């Protein structure tokens, strides 16, 4: 079991954003996380990455308890994540940005630069390597975030709406990149709103609603699940 999250609760005062959610993840999976607005999936995601501390529950990654450990500990253990709104290091070039990730496993500058170049080639950013990171448009920045995370040589990569808002021309390339990352042996958890992406990419999906997991299965299974349909399309409020 690569990642085990049990009984996760995150309370903000009386409001439970996550209200008892479980996740069991094996190596080499490509898992999707979906759910309507306010379902709690982002909060849950942040608990897994260490950015938010759960109010209750435990999380074990590769056998190590990581429930309350900070994000940098997760990074060192092999769990990397990207952010919905890309955060680029704006005083550095594209290559230097990726080197920050590479330095985790390569203390020497030369080795880190080599690793960075390898990752840049893999993610299609090799040509922009010497540009200031700020010269990249948003699709490029999203790719840079992924490259940087890959440079830390993670075992598990968490993608937070990495395809949101991409023009249709970029979506294909993004899907292809995620597939290639998976082919390299990296386990992935993908949060997405775009159903098409979930159908095409993921093998297993967890559906969140009101802080809990209400369905689990293949994309076809969960989208046919009456509970999921109700959660998305609504139910008659009147009798």
């Amino acid at each position, binding site marked *: 079991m690569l990642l085990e999250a049990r009984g996760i609760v995150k309370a903000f005062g009386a409001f439970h954003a996550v209200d008892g959610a479980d996740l069991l993840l094996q190596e080499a999976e490509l898992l999707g996380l979906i759910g309507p607005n306010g379902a709690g999936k982002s909060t849950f995601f942040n608990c897994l*990455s260490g*950015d938010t501390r759960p109010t209750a529950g435990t999380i074990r990654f590769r056998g190590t308890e990581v429930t309350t450990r*900070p*994000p*940098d500990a*997760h*990074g*060192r253990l092999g769990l*990397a*994540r990207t*952010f919905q709104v890309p*955060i*680029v*290091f*704006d*005083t*550095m070039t594209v290559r*230097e940005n990726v*080197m*920050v*990730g590479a*330095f*985790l496993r390569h*203390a020497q*500058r030369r080795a*880190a630069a080599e690793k960075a170049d390898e990752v840049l080639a893999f993610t299609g950013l090799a040509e922009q390597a010497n540009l200031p990171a700020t010269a990249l448009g948003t699709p490029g920045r999203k790719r840079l*975030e992924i490259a*940087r*995370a890959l*440079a*830390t040589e993670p075992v598990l990569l968490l993608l937070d709406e990495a395809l949101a808002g991409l023009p249709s021309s970029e979506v294909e390339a993004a899907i292809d990149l995620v597939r290639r990352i998976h082919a390299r042996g990296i386990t992935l958890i993908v949060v997405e709103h775009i159903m098409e992406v979930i159908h095409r990419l993921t093998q297993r999906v967890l559906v969140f609603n009101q802080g809990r997991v209400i369905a689990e299965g293949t994309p076809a299974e969960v989208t046919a699940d009456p509970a999921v349909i109700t959660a998305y399309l609504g139910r008659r409020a009147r009798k």
Partner: protein
Amino acid sequence: MRPRRALPVAVLVVLLLSPFFSFSPFYQRVAALVVLAAISASAWNVLGGYAGQVSFGHSVYFGVGAYSALLAFTKLGLPPIAGAPLGVMVSVAISVLIGLPSFRLRGHYFSMATFAIAALAELLVISWNFAGGAIGMMGPANSRSLADLLFRGSLPYYVIFLVVLAILLALTHLMQRSRMGFYLRAIGSGERAAESLGVPVRRYKLYALLLSGAFTALAGSLYAVMIGFIDPDSGFGVLISVNMVVMAALGGAGTLFGPLIGAIILVPLSEASNAFFGGGGSGAAYIVYGVIIMLIARFSPGGVAEWWRILSRRRVRRAA
């Protein structure tokens, strides 16, 4: 690339050599003060420029260095420079005890906390009679040995300070290219992202503070050695912190030579305004600094360094 770099390098070299060819003691004194200010500002730059933690409290380290030097003299009869290692050690202790907890705060809150600590430090020193209280302390009146570093002209100080600055800049340059440099810059421009990449943020902020504080303390000791007098205002005064920030920002925070450029511009300006306005000089300095900060923020947040980069890029485009 080379023709673009040649001009500013040449100008800098000429400027740095000029005190040796000047006949004006005033010019040489200002030159020594420029380099001393550049040491402080470059030290500040490690934490404030590269790592983006804008400290307004570095006067604490400066004062510790200055007071350690003159305490070594007045209480132990040692040459003032012998107090410098003590100053560095105390600054390390302060970095860990006070600096580290303050890193829990981010952004403006951090800056304000450092400001508060510095103001508190000044108040405490004013009532510390062992160190001369509000009156302060003086260095040796007559040179007892070469170790006292009491020179009649400013040129020897200029040379010493230049050596120290060169060491600091060399260290900074090495750091910039190393993992620490990358991690500090990452922390400065995206702390949350840096964390997610496995960067132990608190630990690296502390490293930056240790280096930064130590060299600021050394600058304080050197100041006491040259001026031969220290009091709570010239050692722990708020203006010292502000000077460092404005100089680094004006020249280009987060660049290697930015603080030096800032010092070259501001120190002569402030010496001239002191001469012009007499006692009311420090008030005018605040106004001028305020205007400079506004101009930088509005037109060129990267300081002179950024402005120069934009200018040289335009020149290349026109040539092409």
